[in-house]
Every structure is written in structure tokens, then in C-alpha cells.
């Protein structure tokens, strides 16, 4: 609670009521995204000049009621009771008035000045709905302003009404909902307890807050509720239950009795759902057509993330490389040059490389959500997700995991309950993302080149197996997490199917851009810091012995009588070999040596160990690190010398390191291990604590090691390798 903070106006409403559109229309898109303390829910705010006053407009997450049982739901009530909250704009979809007016009724009951923005009046008019807004505002004792947020209609009237509501008044009229006498008595019992909890609250609001407590408390995880209040509520609920009363039903149905009367008095009877929306639904949820369209849309998203983002990612990588060469040319050689080129610029590159996929995925999700199709996606696929204890809405994030876990983890935001979101977020990094592909290609090209299994090439079979395995493991992990680490009731699926609407391109863009900005700032800092740390680990300490040795060799090359091109080639080879030896000497290199006894049972040697350490920056870095380790210089997955070097690598006993069996072991390790600091960073950001990314990294690493161990040892027992 902030007493000295600037006055704020909340903007609240049901999901799908057009609240964000109205918020953007009022704020002109100049919003600031922060976080509510203690929960990972965005707090989007904007400054609004209202007459002579500057107020902060706060976008409260979509909700159907103020009733709360989790900290996420509680924040709306907390915001409402903050002393600097001056008024609430409650957005109501005019086409679903009967249900939509429940939230404003609850808000007005709480005593805060409310302006009801009756949104989507154009859609309401199309289905023949007429609303007597004057009478409605008399009944609600609050202004009711018809608006069309997408067309910016009615905004001036809305702001004028808001300004009037901000005027100080003595006593606020509230609608008189009639609660049963027994409930009234319960409220009278509870009011003094509330008064002790919230002494600064006006006495008139104690009974209303008592109502909220009766409805919200019990089996909840709300924060900051005194034991005295819990005990009092518990006693009242117990006594009521003994007499066969259902308090929740009493409270909610009293409100609906009042609402039904108000709606009957002010609204023309509403026709059925618009026939075109019904017709679209008939196709999109049809057993054959519906599932086919679903498959096509999902494939389209996947293809766009996978292939469509490729040129942009390539361009960013090229640009990063260009900046690195330029900086290397300007800066004097030495540690500072290395820090800037391989630490800072590489780190910034590692952050912005995610921008295309994040923007694309959020544009897609925004489109699916605002058009109403996302709810249908969940409707169509929920049956499958339910089997592993996930919510239908987990499908799009999981699928996106095939492209990249970073935007996919961010996409779990569409899932409502925190527990369900965490399960999804912790399972989806097991989906075989696009950064794993280069590693599969390198391994397949090294150990399976030209081999075949029946009609198929061995490489194709290996690749196909990896993708199938990743799906199975992800689903299994979700099921296990749901039963062990994050137990709790399976997610309930109570989802509104909003009418189809054409989304506004501007809103989609603003929202996607906002998501990207938050990622760049919050997760970006962590990624940058980790890149620099990793660079240091693989660069220090430097061996003077090695550099001295290569300085001598270089001098010999320069003095030799061979041609300039031969000299240049020889020098380049020396550089690459020196880099390899220096890497072996660095902390990271020594660590690779140190863990060799652990890696040996899964078929790896120290060189692959160093590659795995380097790959923590991003999986594909495994390849370029190996290039350095083997003294080849820059290498990609198609690099012939690297493949040859891998084939020639020998263990101490002379046996080859890379066999088909150790190759499979390596692919499985990369499939299952969390070799990606960006995933760690984004899970930290989205889960709100370090606990979950640490858990994620640990369980995936253990899983990867055990699986590789089983494959390698089992394979050897069966006589492979």
C-alpha cells in the first residue's frame, strides 16, 4: 500500500471484454509494464492527464469477479483497497450483459467510485440489443457510458464521467442488493472483526468486506489475512453448513436476483448468438474440418517460427558478427578487446537473436486470442492435454517449444492458474527446439554418414526418433511433475468461448512489442551477464607457456621462404591450434578434463565435455566450441574437418570416441539436458524466483545423464559401439 503514490484509476473487466483495447485507446499506447510485487503478473500502467490532474491508469488482469483464492486473484482486491485508488473504470461487453454486470456490481458494492464502460455497443446493436443506459446508471448509482473501444467511440464521454467521479463526495450511493436476514446477521458478526483488521476503512465498507471474506476465505492461499478473521469466517461458515445453508450460493444468487431484475428493466430481450459466429463454430469445432483446420493453423505457426524466423535470425547473427569484426579491428588486441567482442557484443547478440521468434509468436497468440480462436484451440485439444494433467491452453506453448523454448515459456502466460503454468513451463524445454538440430546434424553426419536401416537412411531414423522421443518425454515429464513437484487438483477447464472478432493490428503489435521489451530488459540482463561469465570461464587463465611457444612458431613461419599465401595459411592454422590449447588450459577446459571420469560412462571424452560447457550459452555453440577445442577454428555442423577430427578422436586406450553408440548417447544428452542459459533466464523471469530455473536445470541434467548412461551402457552390453 502506497499512501504517497500518485492517484490511480483501475481499469477492470472480464476476459475478452475489450479491456486492453480500451486501455490502449485511453493511454495512446504509451504504457509501462512492471510487475505486481510477489506475483508474476504484469502491471501495465499509463499516465493520463485528466483536467488539471495527472492520474495513473492501471490495467488490472481480466477477471469475472473480485472473489479470490490465490495471490494472483488477490491483487485486484489489494489494488482496490489501496488508499490512492480513486476510481475504477469497469469495462463490460454489452453482448454479455447478464453475466458481465456481476463484476461492476461487486465493485460498486465495495464503495469505490465506478464508471461502467459499456463496450462493443456496435456488436450489441447488430444483434438487436437495446440498453437503457440512463436507467441502468440510476440502478447502479454510477455512470454507464456506451463505448466502442476499437473505434475510439465514446471515449470523451467516458473521461468526462471519470472526472466527475473523481470529485470528492460525501457518502456514495450504492445499489441495494437484498441479502437474506440470516446472512445479514452473519455480516453483523463479522464486521467488528474486519474493523480491527482494517481500521482505516470507512465503517460503511466493513460489511461489504465481510461479504468478500465469507466468499473468498477457506481453502485459499491468500496473503496477509489475520488469523482472527480466518477463525471468525470459519466459525460462521461451519455454523451455516450445520443448518444446511450454502453461504456462497446465498451471496451470489442474491446478487444475480438483483442483476436479473436490473437487466430485465433496462435491456431488450437478447436474440441468440449471431448466426455467422455459430456457423464459424460449426466448422471450426467439426470433428473432421475442425481438427484439419486446427492442424493447418498449428503447422502454420510452427513453420513460421521454425523457418520464417530463420532469415531474420540469420541477419541478426550476421550483424553481430559484423560488429564483432569491426570492434576487433578498432580495439587494441588484448583482454579488453576479447571482453567486448566475445563477452559483451556476443551477449547482446544472444539476447536480440530471440526477438524475431518472440515477436512472431506473440503476434500469432495475440491474433488467436483476440479473434476468439485460442479458446477453440483449447476446446479441440483439451482432451489430449487432460491426459497428462495439462490445460488445453498449454498446447500452443508446447508446440512453440519445437522452435524455441524462450518464447514458448513466455507464451505460458495465456494459462490462467500459476500451478498449471509452472508445469507447462518446466516440461516444455524438453521439446526438441531448433537449436538442437545442428547438433543432431553434426553427429549424424559424423557417425551415420552413408549408412542405412532398411529403406531409410540411418540419419533420418535417428532424427525422427529424437523428435518423437522429445514429445513423449515432455508429456511424461508434465504428468510426473503434476503428481510430484506440483501436486494439486488437475486443472479445471471452465473457459468462455467468446464470439469471433476481427483483431486490431495495432493492438496486436503493441502487445507483442511490449512482451519483447520486457524480455529484452529483464531476461536480457541475465543472458548478457551469463555470456560474459561463460566467456571468462573459457578464456582464463591464459597460459604464457602456450602463447610463448606459438609466438616462436609464428616467427619461424614468417622467416621461412614460402609464399605469402602459404604463410598466411600456416599462421591461421597456428592461431586455431593456439586457441584450442588455450581453451584446454582455461578454467572451463580444466573443468572439462576434471569431469571426464563422469562423462566416460556415457561415452564422452574431455573435449566433448568442454563443448558441453560452452554449449550452455546456447546449444548450437557446442559446435563452434568443438571447432576451437580441436584447433580447427570456425566451424559449423556441415564442417568436414570437424567431422573428420571427431571421427579421429581417440580415448586414452586408443578406441574411437565417436561411434554410432556414443553419437546416439550425445544426441540424447542434448535432447534432454537444459543446455541453454536463455531458457534459465526466461524461466526465472516468468516464475518470479530462482528456485524453478535451478530445479529445471537440475532435473533435466540428471535425466539427460541417466538416459545417456542407459543408452551407452546398455548398447555396449548388447554388443554395439
Amino acid at each position, binding site marked *: 500500500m502506497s499512501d504517497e503514490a500518485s492517484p490511480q484509476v483501475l481499469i477492470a473487466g472480464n476476459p475478452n471484454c475489450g479491456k486492453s483495447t480500451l486501455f490502449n485507446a485511453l493511454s495512446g499506447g504509451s504504457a509501462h509494464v512492471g510487475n505486481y510485487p510477489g506475483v508474476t503478473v504484469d502491471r501495465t500502467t499509463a499516465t493520463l492527464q485528466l483536467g488539471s490532474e495527472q492520474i495513473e491508469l492501471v490495467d488490472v488482469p481480466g477477471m469475472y469477479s473480485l472473489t479470490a483464492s490465490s495471490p494472483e486473484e488477490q491483487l485486484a482486491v489489494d489494488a482496490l483497497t489501496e488508499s490512492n485508488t480513486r476510481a475504477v473504470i469497469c469495462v463490460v461487453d454489452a453482448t454479455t450483459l447478464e453475466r458481465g454486470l456481476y463484476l461492476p456490481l461487486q465493485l460498486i458494492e465495495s464503495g469505490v467510485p465506478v464508471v461502467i464502460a459499456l463496450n462493443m455497443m456496435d456488436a450489441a446493436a447488430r444483434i438487436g440489443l437495446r440498453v437503457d443506459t440512463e436507467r441502468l446508471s440510476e440502478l447502479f448509482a454510477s455512470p454507464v457510458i456506451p463505448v466502442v473501444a476499437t473505434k475510439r467511440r465514446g471515449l470523451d464521454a467516458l473521461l468526462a464521467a471519470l472526472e466527475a467521479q473523481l470529485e470528492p463526495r460525501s457518502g456514495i450511493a450504492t445499489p441495494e442488493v437484498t441479502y437474506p436476514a440470516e446472512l445479514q446477521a452473519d455480516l453483523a458478526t463479522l464486521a467488528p472483526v474486519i474493523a480491527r483488521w482494517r481500521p482505516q476503512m470507512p465503517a460503511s465498507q466493513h460489511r461489504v468486506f465481510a461479504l468478500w471474506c465469507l466468499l473468498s476465505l477457506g481453502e485459499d492461499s491468500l496473503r496477509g489475512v489475520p488469523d482472527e478473521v480466518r477463525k471468525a469466517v470459519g466459525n460462521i461458515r461451519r455454523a451455516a453448513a450445520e443448518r444446511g445453508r450454502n453461504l456462497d450460493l446465498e451471496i451470489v444468487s442474491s446478487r444475480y436476483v438483483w442483476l436479473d431484475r436490473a437487466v430485465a428493466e433496462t435491456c431488450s430481450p437478447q436474440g441468440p448468438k449471431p448466426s455467422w459466429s455459430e456457423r464459424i463454430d460449426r466448422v471450426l469445432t467439426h470433428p473432421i474440418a475442425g481438427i484439419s483446420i486446427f492442424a493447418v493453423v498449428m503447422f502454420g505457426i510452427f513453420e513460421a517460427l521454425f523457418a520464417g524466423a530463420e532469415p531474420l535470425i540469420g541477419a541478426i547473427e550476421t550483424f553481430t558478427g559484423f560488429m564483432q569484426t569491426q570492434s576487433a579491428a578498432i580495439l587494441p588486441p588484448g583482454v579488453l578487446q576479447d571482453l567486448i567482442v566475445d563477452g559483451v557484443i556476443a551477449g547482446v547478440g544472444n539476447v536480440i537473436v530471440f526477438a524475431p521468434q518472440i515477436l512472431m509468436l506473440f503476434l500469432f497468440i495475440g491474433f488467436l486470442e483476440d479473434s476468439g480462436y485460442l479458446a477453440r484451440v483449447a476446446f479441440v485439444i*483439451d482432451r489430449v492435454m487432460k491426459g497428462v494433467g495439462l490445460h488445453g491452453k498449454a498446447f500452443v506453448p508446447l508446440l512453440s517449444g519445437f522452435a524455441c523454448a524462450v518464447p514458448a515459456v513466455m507464451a505460458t502466460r495465456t494459462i490462467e492458474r500459476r500451478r498449471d503454468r509452472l508445469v507447462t513451463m518446466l516440461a516444455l524445454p524438453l521439446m526438441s527446439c531448433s537449436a538442437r538440430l545442428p547438433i543432431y546434424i553434426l553427429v549424424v553426419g559424423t557417425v551415420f554418414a552413408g549408412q542405412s536401416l532398411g529403406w531409410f537412411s540411418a540419419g533420418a531414423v535417428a532424427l525422427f526418433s529424437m523428435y518423437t522421443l522429445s514429445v513423449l518425454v515432455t508429456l511424461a515429464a508434465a504428468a510426473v511433475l503434476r503428481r510430484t513437484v506440483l501436486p494439486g487438483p488437475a486443472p479445471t477447464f471452465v473457459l468462455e468461448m467468446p464470439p469471433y472478432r476481427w483483431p486490431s493490428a495495432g493492438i496486436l503489435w503493441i502487445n507483442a512489442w511490449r512482451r519483447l521489451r520486457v524480455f529484452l530488459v529483464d531476461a536480457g540482463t541475465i543472458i548478457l551477464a551469463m555470456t560474459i561469465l561463460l566467456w571468462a570461464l573459457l578464456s582464463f587463465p591464459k597460459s604464457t607457456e602456450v602463447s610463448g611457444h606459438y609466438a616462436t612458431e609464428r616467427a619461424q613461419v614468417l622467416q621461412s621462404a614460402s609464399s605469402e599465401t602459404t604463410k598466411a595459411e600456416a599462421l591461421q592454422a597456428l592461431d586455431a591450434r593456439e586457441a584450442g590449447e588455450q581453451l584446454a588450459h582455461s578454467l572451463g577446459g580444466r573443468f572439462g578434463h576434471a569431469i571426464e571420469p563422469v562423462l566416460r560412462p556415457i561415452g564422452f571424452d574431455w573435449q566433448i565435455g568442454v563443448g558441453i560447457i560452452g554449449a550452455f550459452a546456447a546449444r548450437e555453440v557446442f559446435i563452434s566450441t568443438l571447432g576451437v577445442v580441436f584447433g580447427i577454428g570456425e566451424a559449423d555442423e556441415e564442417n568436414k574437418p570437424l567431422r573428420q577430427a571427431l571421427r579421429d578422436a581417440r580415448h586414452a586406450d586408443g578406441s574411437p570416441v565417436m561411434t554410432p553408440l556414443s553419437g546416439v548417447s550425445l544426441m540424447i544428452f542434448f535432447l534432454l539436458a537444459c543446455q541453454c542459459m536463455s531458457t534459465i533466464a526466461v524461466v526465472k523471469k516468468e516464475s518470479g524466483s530462482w528456485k524453478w530455473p535451478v530445479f529445471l536445470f537440475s532435473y533435466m541434467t540428471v535425466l539427460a545423464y541417466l538416459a545417456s548412461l542407459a543408452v551407452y551402457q546398455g548398447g555396449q552390453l548388447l554388443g554395439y559401439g
Partner: protein
Amino acid sequence: MKRSLVDLPLGQHAEIASIDCERRLSRRLMEMGLLPGTRVRVVRVAPLGDPIELRVRNYSLSVRRAEAAKIAVRPEGAV
């Protein structure tokens, strides 16, 4: 005989009699306007058989069968 939403033929109107699921869910359903006496109808079933879509208070809501089975109804026209 007690009938629930899952027993209701597609498209037939009914009146909710009671909701008997865990408190959090029943409270949520009630606050979304599903109360004893509210008119409801099953509009469609998802392609894979679950969940189902309801039409209530002029909006559409989908719930899983397991939950719908806990919403008792009186079909309109029935005694």
C-alpha cells in the same frame, strides 16, 4: 431420477437444479451466472468427445464432462 448436464440431449433447454462440485469450482460457476434456476443448453461436444460447450445467459462456456456431470438439471417440459 437426478439428471446432469452430460445426460442432456444436444440442444435441449434445461434449468440448473444444483451444482455439487468442489467449492472453488462451484463458486466460479455460480459467479459466472450458473445458478439454480438458470436456463442452460448443451450446444456442442468437442471433436474428441470432451469438453462440451454450454450456452447460458447469452454467452458460451465450455466445461469438461467430469465437471458437467456435477451440475444437476431439470429438462424443460419434464415434471
